[in-house]
């Protein structure tokens, strides 16, 4: 009896210390997500909250809605270009820096600092760089491209692919982060492993392919998951570059406009719920896997 009491006495204070955070997160994360789902099946539109049950009405409406199709397509293009671009640039930079270069600290700072800048400031600067007016009004990146005789229209605001241009500032902001993740992964590989392969007569390329590559998969997965969830949520960057432009609109922006500009709260909640599930599908297995791996490592 007293032994049990002692054991309980040992963990109760810990639980008490954690409980305020648990309660707050319980309400603000899990409670709100549930509440949001509940709102999405009501008829709440307009300033006054109403809660008549309408079932999956808003979801069906969204799936039939041209704007939502357009936004989902934009998000898909943005995500693909952004992830592919940031991953390749990040990986390339990490591989080039792997063996140490002169001025590594300075280079690393240069690649990483965009991550500390708000998406709003990033967007404001890049909006001017991506300006695509032809002729006299040519500015920014097109000005530079013009020096080598090219005028690019792919990021022009009336192009089908305007959304892909947003991946450029997004990649500018986050490639350095991917670089840092890969660099940490590369440096975490014990030198003996590479050395052993070299002693066995492997060329440098084969060392990377057979020894380094398999060990980088966990980092690759982390980077993919992080970029994917950032991409799905991206709101302020696009909002700062091209607000209210259907060609660069994504569900995250559509949700904001629907709920907080149009007062269609139930509809906005439905978009947010879809966004939530899209992210949860990626994140839940990732957390589960990370925690299990850590536990087996211990």
């Amino acid at each position, binding site marked *: 009896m007293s032994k049990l009491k002692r054991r309980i006495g040992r963990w109760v204070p810990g639980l008490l*210390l954690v409980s305020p955070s648990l309660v707050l997160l319980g309400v603000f994360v899990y409670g709100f997500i549930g509440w949001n789902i509940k709102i999405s099946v009501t008829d709440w539109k307009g300033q006054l909250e109403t809660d008549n049950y309408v079932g999956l009405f808003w979801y069906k409406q969204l799936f039939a809605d041209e704007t939502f199709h357009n936004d989902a397509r934009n998000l898909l293009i943005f995500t693909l270009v952004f992830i592919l671009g940031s991953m390749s640039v990040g990986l390339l930079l990490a591989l080039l820096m792997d063996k140490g270069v002169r001025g590594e600290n300075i280079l690393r700072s240069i690649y*990483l*600092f965009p991550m500390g800048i*708000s998406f709003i400031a990033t967007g404001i*600067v890049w909006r001017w760089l991506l*300006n695509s007016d032809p002729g006299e009004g040519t500015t920014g990146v097109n000005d530079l491209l013009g020096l080598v005789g090219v005028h690019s229209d792919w990021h022009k605001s009336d192009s089908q692919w305007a959304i892909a241009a947003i991946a450029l500032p997004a990649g500018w902001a986050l490639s350095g982060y991917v670089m840092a993740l890969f660099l940490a992964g590369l440096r975490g590989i014990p030198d003996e492993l590479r050395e052993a392969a070299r002693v066995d007569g492997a060329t440098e390329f084969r060392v990377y392919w057979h020894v380094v590559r398999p060990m980088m998969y966990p980092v690759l997965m982390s980077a993919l998951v992080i970029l994917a969830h950032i991409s799905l949520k991206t709101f302020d960057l696009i909002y700062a570059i091209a607000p209210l432009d259907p060609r660069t609109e994504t569900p995250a922006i559509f949700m904001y406009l629907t709920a907080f500009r149009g007062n269609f709260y139930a509809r906005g909640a439905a978009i947010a719920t879809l966004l939530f599930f899209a992210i949860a599908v990626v994140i839940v297995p990732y957390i589960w896997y990370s925690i299990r791996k850590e536990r087996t490592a211990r």
Partner: protein
Amino acid sequence: MTRIFRNLVLFAFAIFFLMPVYVLLVTAFKSPGEVDVVHMWTLPKSLSFDSFSLVWPKLQNGMVNSLMLAIPASVISSLLGAANGFVLAKWRFPGADVVFPVILFGMFIPYQAVIIPMSGLMTDIGLKGGLDGLILIHIIYGLPITTLIFRNYYIGLSEEVIEAARVDGAGMLRTFAYIALPLGLPAFAVAMIWQFTSAWNDFLFGVIMTRTEFWPVTVALNNVAGAQTVPFNQAMASAFLASIPTLLVYLLLGRFFMRGLMAGALKG
């Protein structure tokens, strides 16, 4: 040969990453008469601070709000995160293995999925519109990452230190306050920087949860420089001003920032 090539590529990327900074600086320091998007890549003929003095009055209030918001939000969130991290790493209770991922999940959710109910609750408890509510929100949504940073840090702490305190008769709170907190200073730096940056850079919470007079700097910035009609130099000058605090934090404490980045990938 390969080394030269390697350095060349790295240098080219450095230029690419600095390109927006170059445009921003040369534009912001031009005199308003000299500014012209067609000559956006040319250096200013003379250094002028006119653009800054034009936009500063419009941003000042937002800068103050963001400071008053980001400092308490990062301090309190880090303290709570330290307590959680300490308990989850060194003073475990049954079910701690479940609690940790449940806390962690909050780091990844799209905030769009909580913001309608949040707006409702904050209105009901009278915290919508002002800074207090926004501070509370940043504290809460910062908890997952700060907990993660401290837990990963404290897991590396040797059990003997904790045992020694326990043998001396110290309870949990005393062990936390006198042993774990002082030892956790490096983790504090990481958590504080991470939190300060994300609170300073947040836009979504700020734009929905505050009235005009309590707008954080990102909302003020978007309002000043977001319109297409705003002169180019003013847009650049205000983007620069609004980025100074996080840039300073980053340049002065970059080492810790790096570690925070690693934590964001669930790594210790």
